[in-house]
């Protein structure tokens, strides 16, 4: 009796969602298997973590209040009054940080494997925008608990945006919804975080996955082996193993180091010493601190910001710039540039925490 019902349900769903065709596609689709195929799994893990973010974010919406008089209190209630609220919020916060860290790993692994080369240029570009979007998710989400650290970090962050030449002032006013961090800012950041950014991210993720599925995984240049494994179920099982491991890590972090609530923000208080943004922005933050006040009579900070923007643009255009890789030839120059960029990010991030008085 039960198998019959199961078959009927399957038939019902299959006729409507074309599940058999999807499975056939999955079975037909193969993934290259070689000594560097380990790096393929980071994309899947990032997608898994994004799903966790959506699920936990939706749950947090049940209790979070986006108002400066109630935001901090609502987070306090989530952490102490709501059953498993502490777990949901800690998962959301920890996963956000792990996700951004793994997005960097995914991006650099893709870069060093030169997976951006023809015909996957757009996969790289959409991935680049996804990283920017997720950093914006982090920046907007950081303010939502309305605590002292997030409040002042937002002030510092938006001041940096405000020092951009020509558009700085207008951009800062647009981000803040006024001249300073206020209720308008919290409302905007909330709107960015739960409406605008998720919509943009879903569209980009859709395009990114579509491109990955249709174009397949890129093989590193010079990889001679022709060994391949089916995407379904072989590769998916390996992906699931990675997801399981990451779940254990998140669980341990949430239980032993639940995310702090912090002290409620007081706009009238003076800026606490050593205020800094979230760790993934610190390489830029420390650069701005180290850059001389003036370089060739131009304001050093503005020049550094322009430098980051130009660097980001070049990074996005790497598939077009690296012509050797496009011709399936090794491009050691780009590998060196990638290594230098990765080393710069790591060193600057470490310096921020190792030498806070820098």
């Amino acid at each position: 009796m039960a198998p019959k019902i199961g078959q009927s349900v399957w038939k019902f769903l299959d006729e409507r969602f074309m599940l058999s065709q999807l499975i056939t596609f999955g079975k037909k689709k193969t993934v290259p298997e070689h000594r560097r195929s380990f790096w393929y799994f980071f994309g899947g893990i990032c997608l898994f973590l994004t799903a966790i973010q959506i699920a936990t974010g939706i749950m947090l919406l049940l209790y979070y209040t986006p108002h400066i008089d109630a935001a901090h209190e609502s987070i306090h209630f989530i952490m102490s009054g709501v059953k498993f609220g502490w777990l949901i919020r800690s998962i959301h916060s920890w996963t956000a940080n792990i996700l951004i860290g793994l997005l960097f790993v995914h991006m650099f692994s893709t870069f060093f494997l030169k997976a951006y080369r023809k015909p996957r240029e757009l996969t790289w570009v959409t991935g680049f925008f996804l990283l920017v979007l997720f950093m914006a998710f982090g920046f907007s989400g950081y303010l939502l608990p309305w605590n002292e650290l997030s409040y002042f970090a937002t002030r510092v962050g938006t001041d940096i945006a405000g020092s951009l030449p020509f558009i700085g002032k207008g951009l800062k006013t647009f981000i803040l919804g006024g001249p300073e961090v206020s209720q308008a800012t919290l409302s905007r950041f909330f709107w960015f975080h739960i409406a605008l950014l998720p919509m943009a991210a879903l569209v980009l993720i859709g395009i990114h996955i579509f491109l990955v599925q249709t174009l397949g995984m890129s093989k590193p240049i010079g990889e001679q082996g022709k060994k391949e494994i089916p995407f379904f179920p072989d590769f998916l099982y390996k992906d699931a193993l990675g997801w399981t491991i990451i779940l254990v890590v998140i669980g341990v972090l949430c239980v032993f180091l639940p995310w702090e609530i912090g002290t409620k923000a007081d706009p009238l208080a003076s800026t606490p010493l050593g205020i800094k943004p979230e760790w993934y922005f610190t390489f830029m933050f420390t650069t701005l601190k180290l850059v001389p006040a003036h370089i060739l009579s131009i304001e050093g900070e503005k020049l550094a910001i322009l430098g980051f923007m130009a660097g980001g643009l070049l990074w996005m255009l790497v598939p077009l710039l690296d012509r050797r890789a496009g011709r399936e030839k090794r491009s050691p120059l780009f590998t060196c540039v990638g290594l230098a960029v990765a080393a710069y990010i790591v060193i600057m991030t470490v310096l921020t925490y190792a030498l806070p008085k820098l």
Partner: protein
Amino acid sequence: MNIRATRLFVSAALFAPLLAFGQKNSCVDCHSQLEDELKAPVAALAADVHAEYGLGCKDCHGGAPDKDDVDLAKDKSFKGAPKRSDIPRFCGGCHSNAAAMRAFNPALRTDQLSQYETSRHGQLLKAGDTKAAVCTDCHGVHGIQSARLPKSLTFPWNIPQTCGRCHSDKTLMANYGIPTDQLDDYKASVHAKALFDKKDLSAPVCNDCHGNHGAFPPSVTSVASVCRQCHPSTGELFIKSPHKKAFDELGVGECEACHGNHKILAPSTAMIGADEPAVCAQCHEKGSRGSEAASELRRDLDGFESGFRAVKDLLAQARRKGVEVGDAEYKLQDVTTTLVTAKNLTHDLDTAGIAKTVADGETALAEVRAAGEKALDEARFRRRGLGVTTVLLVLLAAALALKIRRMARARQEREGSGDSKTS
């Protein structure tokens, strides 16, 4: 002609401000070429509060700084440097003149000189002791800064050191037969901790108890009034206590008898009891009624305080284990207030009132303790939950790893058989 007149007028209009700006000051011109103490005023005056208000050398020392010749510059109005014994009146020339002060700082008091004359320093100076402190000893000479500026000698956290410069000098103080340990004692006090560690500028320094311009050691009868400026409720309680009458009869300074003067430490229940170092033991013989009452008070307060500390530790433990205990910590703050109230009530020796306060505190403490224990239970539950989940996830991971391995083997076998068929 008209053109020449216009040119002349325009030139005068343009250069007049420059001439005014670069007004001649022969005092500065000469003294900047001299050495050591004769040169020092030139540099120091740049940061001086008087210079900020536009006052110059002439305004205190007289003379004619617009003259190049020294003899002409030191004209009849020249006062030179005042004698040490004349300094208070020298400064008082302006600072006691309300009309003159109004032009610069109308809010500044003008009774410093009259206060100084009532001070111990002023009395000694009047008696011909030129070693007695005068204005410049506390405020500096040139380079005097507003007391609101942290670098000023009279800014709150500099005052102990300013007074201590003389009062810690054993040679100088030997003439007056007064101790020189006040500064060290003060630095060990709870007031100094508030001032230097917590940067609480409202914490008392020397002049808050002794006065500033009218500085004088408070008499036995006025000690309590001095302390009550900041501790009024404690003073009110003490007046109601049987100690008030006894202390008055014995001629003992109220607060100072138990808390000391410069080295006032953070009060604790260790001050109460029948045995040393409890201060009660200074007057009450062991076994006396007073001694017994002190022991009982100590037992009650210590019991409450140790319970309070245990609950505080409990909450800290729960917080370390990651459980949010903000509400319980907030309630514990109320218990802290009750504990402080109970300790404060010892000043009027109302044992019934203290017992009731302690009982109320214990009730509130029990509620917080229950919240703390619940939080620790929650921490244990979370760890157990994590353990179970981790085991399940590890099992799942192991199953997946096995499955992946089996699939890889099957694939290899298929590929092997495919190869053999091909060959």
